[in-house]
Structures are given as structure tokens and as C-alpha cells.
């Protein structure tokens, strides 16, 4: 039976501010799940603490609203315990790139097959608009008494250097693009980052929907000229495969680097980088424990088990008091 959008959407009261970009992310994610037709019993959403985190309540899948910044750590444990789960982790930019930055980096080293969507709004939304780690130096969003004194980080490059094998950016109000990007991220075998430019109308009065959409820039016919453009439509091919030589890979990385720094008049969205064929963590475990995928930790002691299942006595003769054989 094909999934309908209504199957994955709950009827709980949604308390995001009107016009919040999170609505676009929620809708795109739900559409992506619907269109992919995944068994929703297998889907688990993990979120952190922040406005973004509430998304797990509005979506009809298994979910857990974890601690601030710890989403990836929690989700990785769950996925490794049961690799059959379709894991989608959701974080805020404060959550994922600030307090959870360590987990963000180290998740890249493992390349566990899961998707991480970051609601990048430039502010700590839920705590009333302080500058988040992505806010640029010198910017002054609404609730800052002084311009931001820190540099903003570049999530694309951070992810690239950490080893993410799928790195994309999308825009909360381009739901078609975001939905397609999420679908590709979920389909990607390995760790996928989708950094989503997310207007926060309440606290970020700089990177607003109107700004992203270029309402302040009109062409001759009076139409807004959006700042956001699709790099893949403009010919950027994100694929990096094992067949490419070092030079080709270097060139691609340099290009990704350059693209990731574009900001202001031109803001690229799309898939920046996708590495094919890098073993996932699950592959690496399977290479050591061949039964891992069939019999992962979560399945070894099924509900209802009443007796210990390993015979450790056989592990070593040194474990039992026994007659010597000097």
C-alpha cells in the first residue's frame, strides 16, 4: 500500500512561529519519506534540543528527542545496534555545529549509513536568538546587542574534511529541491549531510526568506532574482568515485571549496560532494564479524529471551577450576 503524506504526519499541535523555515523542512522530509515508500516502522528520527527538535513529534515514525547536541552520538549507537533502521538525525546549527561539533566531526570518520539534516538558521532559536556557529563575523541579527565577534564556520568544508561521503545544502522554502535532496541523502550509502538554509523570521532578520528569495533584487520585468541557485543545474557534478585519479579528485575538492565559500549575491544549493564506494562502518564491522548484518546487537537477545546464549566456558580453559596438566 503506497504511503500517503497523511500517513507520516501527526495531528499534534505545531508551535513553530508563523513563517518559520522549519515548516518547509518538516514538509520536505515527510514528502521524501512518503515518496521513498519506506516501511515507516523502520524509520527513526533523532533530534536535538532546539526549535528544530520538535519535528519528531509532528512526524509519524519512531522518534526520539535527545539532548542538545547529542543527536548524532545517540543515533549512531542506535543504527549500529540495528543497521536495519532507516536513521534520520536532525539537528540545529547550534546543536550540531556548536555543542555537538565533536560528534559532527567524528561521525565523518565512521561513515555510518544514515542521514543528518541540519536546520541552519544562524541563531540559537529556542534560546531567543543568540548568534549560532554559522553566523558570520560582523553580522548582527535582531537580538544581538553588538555585531557577532566570532567567525562563522563552513559546514560543507568541515564535513568534507571529516569524511562525510554525501554533502549537500538546500533551502527550507524550496521544498521540491529539499525533498529531492533528502531522498538522495537517504538513498546514499554512507553518512549524508544536508545543511538546510532555514529562515528564522523571529530572530534572524538578515538571512530572511525575502533575502534568500532576492525580493530586494528585481530584474527588468520586476521579478525577484533569488540568491539561492542550484549548483547541479549549473553543471556541478558532485560524484567522486574510486576510479578517479588523485588529480581529478583534487580538482573536484578545490571546486567544492570554492563553491562552499560563495555567499551573498550567489548562494549555491545542491549536492556539493558525493563519494561512491567508500565502505560504511557497517561494511567495516561486517568484514570482521560476518554475521553482523543478519544478527546485529539488537537482534541477538530478542524480547522474551530468558537464558544466556553464549557459552563462554568454551572460550578458554583458563576460565574453569580444573585439573592441571603440567
Amino acid at each position: 500500500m503506497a504511503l500517503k503524506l497523511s500517513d507520516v504526519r501527526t495531528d499534534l499541535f505545531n508551535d513553530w512561529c508563523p513563517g518559520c523555515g522549519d515548516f518547509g523542512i518538516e514538509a520536505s522530509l515527510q514528502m521524501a519519506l512518503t515518496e521513498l515508500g519506506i516501511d515507516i516502522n523502520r524509520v527513526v528520527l533523532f533530534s536535538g534540543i532546539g526549535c528544530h527538535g520538535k519535528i519528531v513529534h509532528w512526524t509519524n515514525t519512531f522518534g526520539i528527542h535527545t539532548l542538545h547536541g547529542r543527536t548524532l552520538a545517540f543515533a549512531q549507537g542506535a543504527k549500529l545496534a540495528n543497521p536495519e533502521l532507516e536513521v534520520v538525525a536532525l539537528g540545529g546549527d547550534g546543536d550540531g555545529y556548536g555543542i555537538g561539533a565533536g560528534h559532527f566531526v567524528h561521525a565523518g570518520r565512521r561513515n555510518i549509513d544514515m542521514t543528518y539534516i541540519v536546520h541552519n538558521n544562524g541563531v540559537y532559536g529556542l534560546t531567543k536568538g543568540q548568534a549560532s556557529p554559522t553566523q558570520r563575523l560582523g553580522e548582527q541579527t535582531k537580538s544581538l546587542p553588538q555585531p557577532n565577534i566570532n567567525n562563522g564556520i563552513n559546514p560543507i568544508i568541515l564535513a568534507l574534511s571529516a569524511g562525510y561521503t554525501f554533502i549537500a545544502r538546500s533551502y527550507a522554502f524550496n521544498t521540491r529541491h529539499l525533498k529531492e535532496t533528502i531522498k538522495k541523502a537517504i538513498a546514499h550509502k554512507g553518512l549524508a549531510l544536508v545543511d538546510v538554509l532555514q529562515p528564522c523570521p523571529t530572530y534572524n532578520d538578515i538571512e530572511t526568506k525575502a533575502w534568500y528569495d532576492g525580493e530586494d533584487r528585481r530584474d527588468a520585468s520586476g521579478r525577484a532574482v533569488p540568491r539561492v541557485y542550484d549548483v547541479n543545474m549549473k553543471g556541478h557534478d558532485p560524484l567522486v568515485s574510486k576510479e578517479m585519479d588523485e588529480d581529478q579528485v583534487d580538482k573536484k575538492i578545490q571546486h567544492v571549496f570554492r563553491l562552499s565559500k560563495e555567499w551573498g549575491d550567489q548562494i549555491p544549493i545542491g549536492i556539493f560532494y558525493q563519494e561512491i564506494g567508500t565502505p560504511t562502518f557497517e561494511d567495516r564491522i561486517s568484514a570482521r564479524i560476518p554475521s553482523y548484518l543478519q544478527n546485529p546487537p539488537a537482534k541477538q537477545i530478542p524480547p522474551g529471551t530468558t537464558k544466556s546464549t553464549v557459552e563462554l566456558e568454551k572460550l578458554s580453559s583458563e576460565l574453569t577450576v580444573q585439573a592441571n596438566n603440567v
Partner: protein
Amino acid sequence: MSEKDSDAEITLRLGAAAGDGIQSAGEMIMKVLSRSGMHVTTYNGNQSLIRGGHVWFHVHASTKKIYSLGYGIDFLIPLTQLSYDQHFEKLNQGGAVIYDPVAVKIHDLDPKVMQISVPLADIALKYDKRPIMKNTVALGSLCAAIGVDINVLSKAIQDQFGRKEPAVAENNIKAAMDGYEMVKKQTRPLKNIQYNYSVRRPAMTADYALALGAVAAGCRFYAAYPMSPASPIVHWMASHAKKLGITVFLGEDEISVMNATIGASYAGARAMCATSGGGFALMQEAIGEAAMTETPVVVVDVMRAGPSTGLPTKTSQGDLNMMLGISQDDFPRVILAPRNPEESFYTAPRAFNLAERYQVPVIILLDFAIGDGGYSTVDNLNFAFEIDRGKLLSTPPPAYTNGYWFKRFAITDDNISPRSIPGTPDMMFVAKTDEHDEWGHDLSDVLAGLKEYLPIRRRMHEKRMKKLEEIKKEMKLPEIYGPSGADISIITWGSSSNAVREALHELHKKGVSVNSFEFSDIYPMQEDEVRKILSTAGIMVDVEVNYSAQFAKLLKREAGVEINNFFLKYDGEPIYPEEVEKHILATRKEVHAIA
């Protein structure tokens, strides 16, 4: 010899610089003794360095069951002058020091201690360009002095080096033999022990025993970040991962370790992690998360002396207060403190069953002394554990579903809600670290503080806390040793019990009226029962390894039992029975003086 039975007991100590292989030599002699039917307990006097400094290895062995490190030193083998200087004063009369006169100058030695001079380095140089085999020579010498069959040592050497070139084992065996012959020429065995070569006893640390017990109990996800003295657990798990199908997750920090462990448990695995105090401090927020989301989890703290980085290779029982006060606000937790490796083994399955039955975090407190720093021989271990996954269900009871969502946090008569794991059809739910209602839905946002929702918050909080009442009933009361109605009662917990129990024997021989109450289940406490039991106690003396008598304070807080006499040790070393004995004798004197 010590006042203890010289025909049944040995204490010995090897001392050297780190990098001299003293740990493996110590383990070798431990093996020799445990394979000769002896009960053995050891302690590793480690330092936090890789080379140099001073390290030692203490062994206590007996034909009878023993618990602690024994009395004094019967045999000292100092490979360096510092090792002699540090330890010679502890030598028992009738004992011996086995030494190489080139490395060690004997001074101020009790004339009743025998000096056995062996050219350890010279002998070692016969078999290698560098004198690295000198500790093997020393072990051979020791075997002659304690009268144990040298073949047991040869076999242990063969086992140790079996995987290397044959010459390595052969040369070591020859070196050991030379040492053995050299001492044999100088003296008859100083011990007259009936070794039983037909019995071989397994020896293990509490860390190792815990790893075994956990895996036997179904633990298949183990996470860690390296930290002494908890590291042996991850080493064991990693080296058995393949054979036993354990997923080992080496997190980037203890925060990730704890969260990943809870994640794995949420997904349905029996999951555990371990660390020491500093790492545990980083885990605290997440332990609250486990409690709030009612996700079972087992976490081990192998205590080292602190605060802060403290003494990484030294021991303490100073983390109890942290365990009682983990993270913010009230939530249920269980704290278990096994006293020795054997109990550590059996604590693991209990911890998992308690965690799953009550959907709470269970903390196991070990310490350096028994966890990483000391082996003990154990009796035959029984691996046939009962596994109880509690209310983990695969189909929803009708009352707990509304057609698509499962009432995961339902309020029930026993305050424990049915649980499901992701992937289970018709049992979908959202868990939440914010306060939530029975469905897991948010109470912290638009509903927080509304008068209709205040009772719900109260009930959810109470439901979690009231689990403690049920858990209490499963907590073991203290084990009592010695006569009831004794004048003096020692109150102790965890690994400190070992020295206390051994001191008790000696005190009884001296006619002291003393008994002991050993606690291994720490929290929640059956306060009424504990109060009742302790009402039979004599003058209570609290023995523990921390500055502020943390357990005594817990007893006061929970059971209203007040203790005014303490033996508290916090220099990083474990308690030795003679220290307890001395304190109790002094206490008796005071009591008599008053009376």
C-alpha cells in the same frame, strides 16, 4: 614469617622500573601459584608512565580462600635500589629478599630476614645481549625459595612465549632454571606449603570478570573512550568482538560513549559502557536522559583517586557521591558495588536485568584495586544466567495503543510501562528528554504550567521515582561476618570489604569481639531493614577509601544510622588488613579506657 600460617600463606612483592616487565613477571608468578592449587590475590603498584619510575607487583597466595593482600611481605624481589628502599621495611621475619648485589645494596634489614643473593643480570646475559631476562631468573629463584615445582613455571613461560620463536621460551626457561638452581644451593625452601598441582584456579580482575559477565548476560554493544582503570574492559571486548559478535564503539569522548550506549539500548540491544571518574562526569547529562526516556542502560565507573585527573593508576572509593548526585533533579538510579572479581561477574547480569526490568540506569562501581590493579582467583563461574528483559514487548497490549501510536510511558500499577523497540509494527512512539505525557508527547512547551497539566507532570515524575520502591526490594542487605552481638562492628562497602574480612580473622585470633557488615548493593537502600540490622551492631567503625566517609553519610541520610568512628584511607593505595587491625585494636583500647 608473618604471624599468619606460614605453611599455608605467602605474600611476595616484585619491584622494578616501568618497562622492566614487572607486570608480566608478576602475572607469571600469579599463574604459577594459581596453577598449583593456591588461592591468589594480587595488586599492581602502577604509575602513570610507560618507562622508568617505580612499579611493583604484590601477590598474596594461600591454600585457603583469601580476599585481600595479606600481611606484610614474605619475599621481596627488588630489581632496583628504589624497589628495595621502598619496600624492605614491610618484610616479615622469616622471609627473604632475593636480589642482585650489582643492582641493590641491602641496608637496615631485619636480621631475621634472609638475604638471597643471585647474579640476576649476569645469568640473564648468558641468554641475550641485554639482561631483559633478569626477572625470569628472579622468578626461578623465587620458585626455589617458596618450594614450588619449577616445571609449573616452565609451563607458564611456554604459554607466555609460545607464539614467538621457540628460542625465546627455551632461553627463558633456561634462565629460570639457573635462578632456581642457584637458590636451591643456598637454602631449603622457606615455605612448607602443600601445593596441589592437580588444581588450577582461574584468576581475573574485576574489569575482566565484569566483561565476561556482561557478555554472558547478553551485552552486545559496548562503548568506551580509553581511561584507566576501565580500559581492560574495552580491550577484552575488542579482542572478543569477532568471536562473540559484539559491536565495540570507540567514541570520540565519554559524552558520545554514553549517548551511543543509550541509543543502542533504545534500539533494542543490551548495551554497556565503562569509564573512570572524569569520563563519568562527562556522561552525567546523558544518564539523566536514559532515566527520563526510561531507556535501560548499564554503566561502569572504575574509580581512581581524584579529584580531576587525580592519580590515574591509584585507587579510591570517592565517586559514590557523584553517583548519588548524577545530573540534574531527581531520577531513579541503581548503584551496585561488587566487592571482588567473582561478585563483579555475577553483578553484570543482575545489572542488566534490573536496568531492563525497571527501565533505569544501573551503575556498577568498581575501583582500581580490584578492577584493573588486582587479580583474584575465582571459583567455577556459572554462566547459565537468567535473562529478564522486563516489559519489552513485540505486540502492543490493546489498552496501550490508539491504532497507530503506542502509549510507551503509560502509568501502570507498578509504575513500569510496557516498552517497545524501533522497528516493531504497531508500537510506534516518540521518546523525549523533555517532560512528556504517557504517549511521550511534549509537556514542556505550550502545555507547561497549565493547570490541567500540572498533575500530569507530577504523575510522570512520581511514576519514575516510585520505581525505586520496587527496586529496593531487590537490593541485597549487607553480608555479616563474625559473631552477632560483637562489641565492635565494622561497616564497609565494595572492595574495602576484602581487607576487612581478612583483618577479622586476625582480630578474632587475638580475642577481639568484632564483626563486619559488608554492603555491595548501595542504592536504593532498604532503609528500614538496614536500620534494623545495624541496630544489632556494636560500636560502629566505618572503613572506606575516601576522605569524607561518603558511604557512612549515605547511611545516615537514608537509614538515619550515625557512625562516629572511621578508618578512611585516601593516599591512593588500597587498604591492607593490618591497617584495619591496627585501627580496631586502637578502638578497642579507647572503648575499654572509657568503660
